[in-house]
């Protein structure tokens, strides 16, 4: 069996577009998830009554259910109660729901790792809540949670393949469409594998390095 290179070449523009969609969905979802997580982490750090419980409930619900069910719920069930969204919007909503919960956990763990004395001394010199967050907690918690944050960003980027299930034209959906149209299974699977390796492998290797580097930093101090 030999590859039909001419066919592969003819599909490349579509796959370039598909990689664009993957990155678009991934990056938007990462940004919105981070916003949700920052808000949640603030609520948790300052132990805001009631809201704290709500955040806890949200995190558990989102982390203990599959992305696919969340996606199908938004895409297929919400229209029944009058909320109709496109596949792309459903993808962003769902991935923000999931990513927000994961990143909240990451930030919370980072904040927990900041020594309590730091908070107390900040308060004792009269810093406001905002100042405490801005100058004391976030800089330290941010560094501590950097590897986990990065790991979750990669996780979210890879999870975008799941949204192919609601016809978002990212890499997997594009592969499936070409297989269905032209039966060039062999070629399309090769292209898909290559894209994944080129797109995700460098990120994953970078993460391993980052983890080792920060571990090293801890041993050194």
């Amino acid at each position, binding site marked *: 069996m030999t590859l039909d290179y001419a066919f592969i070449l003819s599909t490349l523009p579509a796959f370039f577009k598909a990689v664009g969609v993957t990155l678009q969905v991934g990056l938007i979802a990462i940004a919105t998830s981070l916003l949700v997580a920052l808000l949640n982490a603030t609520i948790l750090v300052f132990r805001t009554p009631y809201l704290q419980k709500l955040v806890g409930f949200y995190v558990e619900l989102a982390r203990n259910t599959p992305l696919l069910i969340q996606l199908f719920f938004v895409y297929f*069930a919400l229209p029944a109660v009058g909320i109709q969204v496109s596949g792309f919007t459903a993808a962003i909503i769902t991935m923000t729901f999931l990513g927000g919960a994961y990143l909240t956990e990451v930030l919370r763990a980072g904040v927990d790792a900041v020594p309590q004395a730091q908070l107390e001394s900040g308060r004792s010199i009269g810093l406001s809540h905002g100042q405490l967050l801005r100058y004391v907690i976030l800089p330290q918690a941010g560094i501590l949670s950097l590897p986990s944050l990065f790991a979750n960003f990669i996780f979210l980027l890879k999870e975008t393949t799941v949204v192919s299930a609601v016809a978002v034209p990212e890499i997997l959906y594009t592969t499936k469409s070409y297989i269905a149209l032209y039966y060039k299974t062999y070629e399309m699977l090769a292209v898909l594998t290559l894209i*994944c390796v080129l797109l995700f492998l460098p990120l994953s290797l970078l993460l391993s390095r980052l983890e080792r580097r920060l571990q090293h930093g801890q041993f050194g101090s």
Partner: protein
Amino acid sequence: MASSGLELLWVSLPQLAKGAGQTLSISFLSIAISTIGGVFYGVLRTLNVTWLNAILRIYLELFRAIPVLVWLYLLFFGLPIFFGLSLPSFWCAVLVLSLWGASEVGEVARGALHSLPRGQREAGLSIGLNAAQLYGYVLLPQALKRMTPPTINVYTRIIKTSSLAVLIGVVDVIKVGQQIIERTYESVLIYGALFLFFFFICYPLSAASRVLERRWTQA
């Protein structure tokens, strides 16, 4: 509405249970194979054999870089072409989830073995234990305890990820749910039920992992 909804769930229960059986079978088989494979992986990685480490690193990075859903399609479409082997979608899902799960459990096992004090290995070797005895009596019993909480978390991820099997045509709990929706249009009710189904399986596991983690790090 509410009572008719409950009635629908009650009537559909045998059908849903059959789908849930498929979902849980895939999860359970994958969890079992992942655990055994992962411990093997951890042991092999800590033997410090250069060429073996290289192979296992490649295996690990491939399963980290390529998303599980892509693996599912690769094997589902690829196995018949490359090996003339047509695997039913159920076993295709078990195979992919097991290979992926083993890489995840394997990294946990490697980390746990690596975290044991070096003196344990040296003491074992100095009293003349061979590799099998060293791992069987000294290193693994300690490492298995350390790896339990994070491994339970991998289990919840395997259960959640088993939901993707519906996309390669397994008639699992989601597919059954979709069939009921096609008949009754009760999408909110059915997807809500599916939400709860996964939540009530995964939440106790996550909670157990957290409790064990806390208890054992304090002790």
